[in-house]
């Protein structure tokens, strides 16, 4: 994949657009975080980028081709998407779940090739799930479960992976577990676009941040350019102080009070 961008993209569930005529370039090879308050349209945008939502105007272009006109199976070999809090069928094992990431590579009589097997193994390895492969997905802890779902999208072997709030409902350790995995995957060459609630998480794992408010991009760029007091006020309506993370050197947002 060379380029991935939205052009005059309008998205919504009713006649009213949540995202209206948005232009957005998504850098290839980087981790991009979409941030913003509840209802700002960040999840809607991600769903649009993953063709889960049909544009009401404009297009999402992958190497210049509108993704909605591409065959869905072909697209599934380019872009993987993990929706918010998916639920696995009762009794499904980790291995069975991850193996289903191979769906877009399979055909009527070609349902478990040597490549499928290889992709399954490396997905389990990358997510450190080999020892849990025979466990039921419903018996795992929140963090392990999220890793299993990410492993399923990895088995898809796409260059780009979209994650919708992968850290929501997880405790601190499990949040870090997922963020570290995201960084690790990026080092392996994956382009990752994810929706995050927490600005400090975004600063920690993303090289590119897109701050959204009411469907508009308020700021985009490197963490130190986006996570500034003015942007935090305009996007979240919160007065804050931006500090430097003493360990990573990245900006850190300390909320002070609601803005007037």
């Amino acid at each position, binding site marked *: 994949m060379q380029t991935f961008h939205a052009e005059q993209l309008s998205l919504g569930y009713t006649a009213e657009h949540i995202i209206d005529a948005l232009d957005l370039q998504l850098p290839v090879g980087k981790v991009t975080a979409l941030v913003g308050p509840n209802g700002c349209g960040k999840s809607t945008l991600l769903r649009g980028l993953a063709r*889960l939502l049909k544009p009401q105007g404009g297009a999402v272009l992958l190497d210049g081709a509108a993704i909605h006109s591409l065959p*869905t199976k072909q697209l599934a070999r380019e872009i993987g998407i993990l929706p918010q809090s998916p639920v696995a069928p009762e009794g499904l094992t980790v291995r069975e779940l991850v193996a289903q990431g191979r769906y877009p590579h399979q055909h009527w009589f070609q349902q478990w090739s*040597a490549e499928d097997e290889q992709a399954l193994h490396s997905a389990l390895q990358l997510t450190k799930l080999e020892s849990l492969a025979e466990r039921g997905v419903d018996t795992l802890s929140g963090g392990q479960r999220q890793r299993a779902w990410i492993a399923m999208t990895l088995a898809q072997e796409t260059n780009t992976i979209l994650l919708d709030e992968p850290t929501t409902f997880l405790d601190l350790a499990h949040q870090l577990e997922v963020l570290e995995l995201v960084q690790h995957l990026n080092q392996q060459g994956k382009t990752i676009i994810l929706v995050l609630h927490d600005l400090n998480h975004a600063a920690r794992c993303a090289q590119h941040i897109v701050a959204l408010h009411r469907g508009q991009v308020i700021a985009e760029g490197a963490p130190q350019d986006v996570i500034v007091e003015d942007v935090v006020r305009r996007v979240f309506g919160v007065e804050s102080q931006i500090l430097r993370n003493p360990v990573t050197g990245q900006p850190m947002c300390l909320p002070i009070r609601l803005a007037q």
Partner: protein
Amino acid sequence: MAQWIVLRSRRLPFSFRLDGRLPGVILGLVLVSLAAMVINMGVGEFKIAPLDVLRTLFGVDTGVPQHTFVVMNLRLPRMLLAWLVGAALAVSGNIVQGVTRNPLASPDLTGVTAGASLAAVFFIVAVPGLPRNLLPVMAFLGALAVAVLLYILAWRKGDSPMRFILVGIGLQATLSAVIGFELTFGRIDLVTQAMMWLAGTVYASTWAEVNSVLPWIGGGLLVAVLLARHLNALNLGEEVARGLGTQVTRQRAVLLLVAVALAGVTVTVAGTIGFVGLVAPHLARRLVGPMHEGSQMVAALVGGALVIVSDLIGRTVIAPAEIPCGIIIALLGAPFFLYLIWQNRERF
């Protein structure tokens, strides 16, 4: 630990994987079905020892000339039909449960088989002149109409299991009332025919009936197994399935059509046999897990075995009178349904 069995050709683009538990489970279920069939063919007014049943089936002379007629012409078609009907209902239920992601869904609980019954009763009572071989088509159309209605009313906006079941039960009740209405006001001789036909039973099955449903059910079962991987994807939820590249709307429609056809066809030869479509998929998942390559095959075998065993019970407990196997299955299935509701109580 359940390993996979991988079948793969080095030269041809051919590869499959199956659950490691499958051979054992299939063998066990086949043995249970065969044993129940042989015992079942021996009981009744004309008793035959199981060994003699086997001899007759394999064409060995037993010394009793009636054996061949009773086994081959009367009882074997009944067994085959029972098995086919059970397998079709089970696979139909397994598909519906997978597509709707709802463990309580099945064609009989949600009025789909009642739709087939209504169409067929209407056909028998109101239009007596029409040829009988149109009956399967009418039953299928009736089942399809109810399935479409159910989809529109309950499922178009999100897949809430509770709403699906409630709407389904509502449809079921309405259809039963309409069937009752037709039976009350129909011509008495035609009503008697319809009543005979409605009772969930494989009583007095013939080779003609076996032949009439075999291509439908055989084809349906084969397609159901081949479509298993799409069903697996749909079972992960609509968004995940679309992310994986599934053509969700199309695969859903194809799978539900197969399910409706399977359930509708059984109604034409066995009336409405309830609960197989609900219970068998659960037992199958307990045996081989939720992946549908295996669970479709196992559900078929469980469903077949269930109907044959129920038929056996129905023929023996108050012999010489018979209880229709549909009633036996309901007696076993209704408590199971309550157990499922109880087990899923946090979900509602």
